[in-house]
């Protein structure tokens, strides 16, 4: 099972291109359009800087270069880990971010894992068991849980959790918590809305696999429902789940920004919020680029992992006739559609018609 090197290089090149374009867009948005940040900040007479000093700062920050010069300076800076200086404090952006990153990484990781566990639990219980009978009600309820979870404003959820667990029940202290205790509520705040799109996609793909011909054949061989879930459904249902994991990264970032603000946790999210308030564009630019980099890496990993799990993509023989070639070309689109659907929190089968045609 050796991956096609051509595919690897193509996919890698694509990721680099997207990253470069994203950097360019962010640079135009945050560095070029706002204009001369140095003048805006340091020419204030109240600061009492002399013209020479201002000129010195201008030279140091390359403020007088042409836009392309600035772009190149900034790009090489990013490639070497030099993200410039904060307009607000004057500290190096890289230092600020390095200080804040670990705490956010911990929150993101724990939030993501919790969301994954939640999603799998919801999805399995929403699809398992015979349709009629006592489990049907449970399934119906669980089936609508993702819809509910995605409608919750994240910031409100954070406040609500503090309200209930700290003030009403007194279970978790928010005043001076230990490191683990401090992580519990923020993790939940991140995880609950994040679990919704994952659960949505899992429910949908499990249902789809359960309705497929090969599950019927396996049932006809005498397999129990649990056997089928473990041996047949799980692996097939994981494929779309993998794609959504790549795509919820954006939600994870949003969750971190809001959660850190609500809980006052020092991290990338809080820095970002403060940077926006103070229009500290260099910090914002660095955060955007780093987050986009994270997104690109995760999706690259997902795309490279995909053919390993889905053996059909390894051989090209499936594209034997013109018709199937067209269909397999549209497969990424189809995956993206499912993810899009899930990200707005509802079970959408955009592919209704095609499915009917194929059946």
């Amino acid at each position: 099972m050796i991956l096609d090197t051509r595919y690897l290089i193509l996919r890698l090149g694509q990721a680099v291109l997207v990253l470069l374009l994203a950097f360019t867009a962010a640079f135009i948005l945050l560095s070029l359009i706002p204009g001369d940040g140095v003048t805006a900040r340091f020419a204030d007479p109240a600061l009492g800087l002399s013209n020479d000093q201002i000129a010195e700062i201008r030279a140091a920050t390359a403020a007088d270069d042409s836009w392309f010069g600035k772009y190149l300076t900034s790009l090489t800076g990013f490639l070497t880990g030099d993200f410039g200086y904060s307009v607000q404090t004057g500290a190096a952006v890289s230092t600020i971010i390095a200080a804040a990153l670990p705490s956010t990484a911990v929150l993101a990781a724990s939030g993501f894992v919790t969301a994954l566990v939640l999603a799998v639990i919801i999805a399995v219980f929403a699809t398992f068991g015979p349709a009629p009978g006592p489990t049907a009600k449970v399934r119906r309820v669980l089936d609508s849980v993702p819809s509910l979870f995605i409608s919750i404003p994240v910031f409100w959820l954070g406040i609500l959790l503090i309200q209930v667990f700290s003030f009403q029940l007194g279970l978790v202290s928010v005043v001076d918590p230990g490191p683990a205790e401090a992580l519990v509520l923020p993790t939940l705040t991140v995880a609950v809305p994040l679990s919704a799109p994952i659960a949505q996609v899992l429910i949908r793909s499990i249902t789809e696999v359960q309705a497929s011909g090969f599950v019927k054949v396996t049932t006809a061989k005498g397999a129990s429902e649990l056997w089928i879930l473990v041996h047949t459904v799980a692996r097939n249902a994981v494929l779309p789940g993998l794609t959504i994991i790549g795509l919820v990264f954006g939600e994870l970032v949003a969750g971190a920004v809001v959660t850190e603000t609500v809980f006052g946790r020092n991290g990338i999210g809080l820095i970002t919020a403060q940077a926006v308030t103070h229009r500290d564009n260099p910090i914002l630019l660095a955060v955007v680029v780093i987050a986009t980099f994270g997104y690109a890496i995760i999706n690259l990993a997902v795309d490279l992992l995909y053919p390993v799990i889905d053996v059909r993509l390894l051989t090209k023989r499936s594209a034997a006739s013109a018709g199937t070639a067209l269909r397999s070309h549209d497969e990424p689109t189809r995956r993206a559609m499912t993810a899009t659907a899930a990200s707005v929190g509802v079970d959408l089968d955009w592919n209704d018609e095609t499915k009917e045609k194929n059946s």
Partner: protein
Amino acid sequence: MSIVFTRGQGTGTDTRRVRGGRARAAITPATIASGLVLLIAIAWALFPGLFTHFDPNDGGDTPALLAPSLEHWFGTDQTGRDAFTRVVYGASQSLLAALVAVGVGLIVGTTIGLIAGTRRGFVDDVLMRLIDVLLSIPAILLSLSIVVVLGFGTINAAIAVGVTAIAQFARLARSQAVQINTSDYVAAAYGSGGTFFSVLVRHILPNSISPVLSLAVLQVGSAILQISTLGFLGYGTPPPTPEWGLIIAEGRNFVATAWWLTVLPGLVVMAIVLATHQIGNTLRKVTS
């Protein structure tokens, strides 16, 4: 000699019955309740004065931080303003912003998607790479960056949120266009002498638009959430104008003493978002 039956042929009346039945099956009590919730929200936005007689921005001499009562359904805030009144008056800001956001995403995204899906080739590749770029920047960071450039305010926040929605509309519109572009009836339309433009307008657009419109309805819900998030962070409407995110942000300082200032407005937002999802989902089921 052989006799072959064919499958899957409904007569005309059958098909009609199925369609009507599907529409009826989709309208559940939950859908009706959602419709009511949305109607109320729209009425709040248009005629807030009908629902409350308090002033949203001036508490007068009402005591601060009153618990919910028949007089003050959601209690009063730190300056004695009626919280329910502020939520009612906030509807216009939040709903208008959501509509602007979805409008931006719908118009720009659908145009890009239709062009990419029908022209294919080079144009398709370039447009889709641009959409990839839009998708690769986490939505909240993209909207924050745009807000920083445009300045704070409800409409600017709405535009920022709308830009993040472009990618989804473009992807959906493209996949619809691709699917319809390869359908037999489009081939037949070209065979009937149609030009690219006439086929686009007469066949591709009408047939691809309904899923896009259901996505638009669904997006209203997430736009409300995203805009209230920006409002909560303080980048939306400046106080004292009521906006849902801002209302909750203000109530946050009194979590310990006045739970109603955050919990109740939050529930309202959640109910409205849930309702738009339900309606959007129903629309999709009926039109597909």
